[in-house]
């Protein structure tokens, strides 16, 4: 969904002090902290799996994925269930969940050159409002996690 043509409706979330947004059409659910069952040998940012009403959903720590320092207390984290383009669901662990916001196209900016290289391919631009920056996440790129083993 191109943020250029129209206003974007994003679910906002906070991780490591930064604010991120995911297109609302890709968000399936939001949950409070829930038990994560370990999956040994998975890449570091994959914390394991959660049992979502009988479905097995892989849990990814957004902080770790974006190379941000890990949260002090993970038990307070929230989960955003997002959908990969293949239909598979994943749980993103974030610090806080914000509102669903409608962001006007004129506030959109493409990735600044100064953006952290590691983030660059996972972000699709950002919105600036009142000095606050909201980075739009590319879900598919976010979920392209290289195998650790």
């Amino acid at each position, binding site marked *: 969904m191109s943020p250029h043509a129209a206003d974007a409706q994003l679910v906002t979330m906070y991780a490591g002090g930064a604010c991120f947004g995911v297109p609302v059409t890709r968000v399936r659910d939001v949950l409070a902290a829930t*038990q994560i*069952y*370990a*999956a*040994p*040998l*998975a*890449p570091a940012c*994959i914390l*394991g*799996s*959660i*049992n979502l009403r*009988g479905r*097995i959903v*892989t849990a990814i720590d957004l902080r770790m994925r974006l190379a941000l320092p890990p949260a002090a207390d993970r038990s307070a984290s929230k989960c955003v269930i997002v959908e990969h383009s*293949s239909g*598979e669901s*994943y749980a993103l662990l974030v610090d806080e969940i914000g509102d669903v916001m409608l962001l006007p196209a004129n506030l959109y900016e493409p990735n600044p050159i100064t953006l952290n290289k590691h983030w660059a391919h996972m972000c699709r631009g950002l919105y600036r409002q009142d000095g606050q920056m909201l980075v739009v996440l590319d879900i598919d790129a976010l*979920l392209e*996690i290289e*195998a650790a*083993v």
Partner: protein
Amino acid sequence: MDDILRDFLSEANDSIDALDRALVRFEREPGDPELLSEIFRVMHTIKGTCGFLGLARLAAVAHAGENILGQFRDGALSPTQDSVSAILEAIDLIKALLAHLEAQGAEPAGEDSALIQRLNAIASADAAPPQAQEPLAARVGGLSTIDCAAELALARAKASPEGVRLHGAQDDTLLSALRDGAWGAISGEAGPSLSATLIQLGLGGEAELELLLRSLEAGLGELGVDAEAIAEAMTTLRAGDAPPAPVVAQTAPTAQSSSIAAQTIRVQVEALEQLMNVASELVLIRNQLLQTLRAQPESPFAGPLHRLNHVTTELQESVMTTRMQPIGAAWAKLPRLARDLALELNKRIDVTMQGEETELDRQVLELIKDPLTHMIRNAADHGLEAPGERAKAGKPETGRIMLSARHEGSHIVIEIADDGRGLMTAKLRAKALAQSLITPAEAETLSENKIQQLIFHPGFSTAAQVSGISGRGVGMDVVRTNIEKIGGTVELSSTEGKGTRFTIRIPLTLTIVSALIVGCGGEKFAMPQSSVVELVGVGGGAGRHIEHVNGAPVLRLRDRLLPLVSLQDLMQLDAPVREDERCVLILRVGALSYGVIVDRVFDTEEIVVKPAASVLRTIPYYSGATILGDGAVIMILDPKGIAQRLGAIDASSDDAQEEARAGETLVQLLVMRGAGATLKATPLQLVSRIEEAETQSVEYANGKPVLQYRGRLMPLVALDEGVRIGARRQPVVVFEDETRAIGLVVEEIIDVVETPLRQEFKPSAADALGSLVVADRVTDIIDLAYYWRGAAFDAAPTRSLTQPPTKRALIVDPRPFNRNLIAPLLAMAGYEVTMAESAEAASALIERESFAVIFSDAEAPVRAQLSASAPIIGLYDDPLSIRQRDAEGFTQIACRFDRDAVLATLNALQCRSAA
């Protein structure tokens, strides 16, 4: 596309497959009338339905095919390869037309007059030459043509605006009317005329009749009936419009596939999938409820929950049954495939099937269709020889491919065997070497089975030419991967010259499996029950211990050495581990057995297999994930993936022993323990019996302990100093010859171990010949001669010395073990034994003294250098290693471990010298 067409397509496809199969069988068994009727019936139905639906092109082709079949049935034409091939061609065309119909919703434009003409030509080839007087019925093409034309006509008529009223009548009735009426008139047979029937149906109008007749005419034209015949037929029809015939009881329209249709119903695949998913979820919830119940056995929910449990299990099983299909469905196309291959390759191929009704999950069926096809191709192309070659090999000219299927527990076992030339090990070896898949060393030492396994290697193909059929070298590895992906195994056994057999084992269902829940490092995992053959407790009071060989953990289990994998290491779990009590799961993957060390085993559960997340799919140790009854998500382990961890040791322990056998001789040693720390051993071959002596049975003669044994007194000697004879019940190992026996008293008999005879000797003590490492423990091989000498007692030997012991025997062998093995035997037999290490030493001795018999090592190049007048007996270790030419030059040969054989040769010599 409307429902009628959709139904027609699926039925037609099934029918065509059935027709394929039946026709191929018919070609081989042309004398089977039932088969022929079936074929005819199927083709007729196809033709009929096509006509009914107005599918002119399909109808025409089917009709032409049916013509030939009709000729077969009437005996006017005998099935030849050509005619059958032609019909098969027609079938292929029908398949293509059907495919187009499915894709586009309509038949493709075009016509097939060429094929039809060819078919008709064949059909009429053997028929009587057309006579001018040939009846109209025949010229028109017989009843079948009229049938077809009638259908086409009806379709056309109803489509026409004038045919509005025709819709008011039942199609079947109209059809019969048209057909019977037309046929009656044309063939001259009696029967209700068309017009009469029409009147009965309330369609007596002229318009309808004329419409139908015109449509009939057009239909006949479309079917390629000769124009003159058509004209004549129409005239006859119109003329034969007699006044209404007496009321004829209407025959009920023949219900197609009557009773059988009532028993089956077509269901969308997606609906079944959904049903399966929901049933699986129910299973999970049931597990969860049961788990909760375990904590509260007194709960009022207990009763209903148990009933729910039963019902859920039944539901699960029932749903699984709906997904089951007989494997014959996957085999359907194979006979036709084989026939075509046979023609293409100029070979004779016969496919036999057994167990086609064996059922398996629909999903699994789909997945094995391609592998099966590939293996049939391989068998036909590479396995089976050309008829000439087969005849030369004394085999019947027709090669056989045998398919069989059966259930075994929760698996289905499918075998594909052929009686062809089998895998040629030498060729495989060479090819593998050329492709650098194996090193030259490996090429020498790898067993035949291991070489055969190489065909599963990607890119491996020994086909000299890549034929259009197979030999692209992408085959068997893909086959194996596909089968293993669904949790199955492929095994291969082949005998050169005789044939090859592939055995595929697949689980019956993929979704719900029985799994063992194990714990390791604080985490739980599920191991599919089907791979687990045994559970072994290690450490603690269990008695077994994990040993290490070259740093790798192994477990000795009933004389096999199994490689082990530590799950904790594998999963990089670092929770503290109780070394003392752990558990080893013995797994079997194909031909490989190995063990996985876990901390504990919980229980067995029926789990629903869910695919692992895509990001985890690269980890080879997982085959999926599941949710336990308590809601926990755990990973399902993949035995094959874990086996890869074993890396270089990718031989099963059986293979390891085989290789050991190939390289070295194995000998069975009786391992025992005296009072000392070192174990002792002696070749089992030398042992006569093992007795148990009670304290009170030990008696004393001349102050020396003896035991009454088989009617004589047997002296007892202790294995070592610490053993106190008679202190308690002790095992006694008895060695004997014909006259004398000696009992070796030991503290404990440990085991019988098969071990390679590695000649590392350091004669350590007087009572030992040397030491070996047996099952990782240093063991002394005892020198029996020492013990015999120890048992020498003052009592005269029981053997009467009619012959003074001046018989001298010479033993020539570079190896002390071998020399000492025979020496006691010879001594007991009354010979004075001299030993020589080499041929030179021996020759020197021979010059100085005369020997009655010389024993020489048969395998070492000693014999050639010996020249003596005395008989020379060759001794060998392993019967398989001795070759014919080695045996020449010896008076006799015998296995040195075979006491009886050695003594027999001695006896024979004695008799000869006595005579």
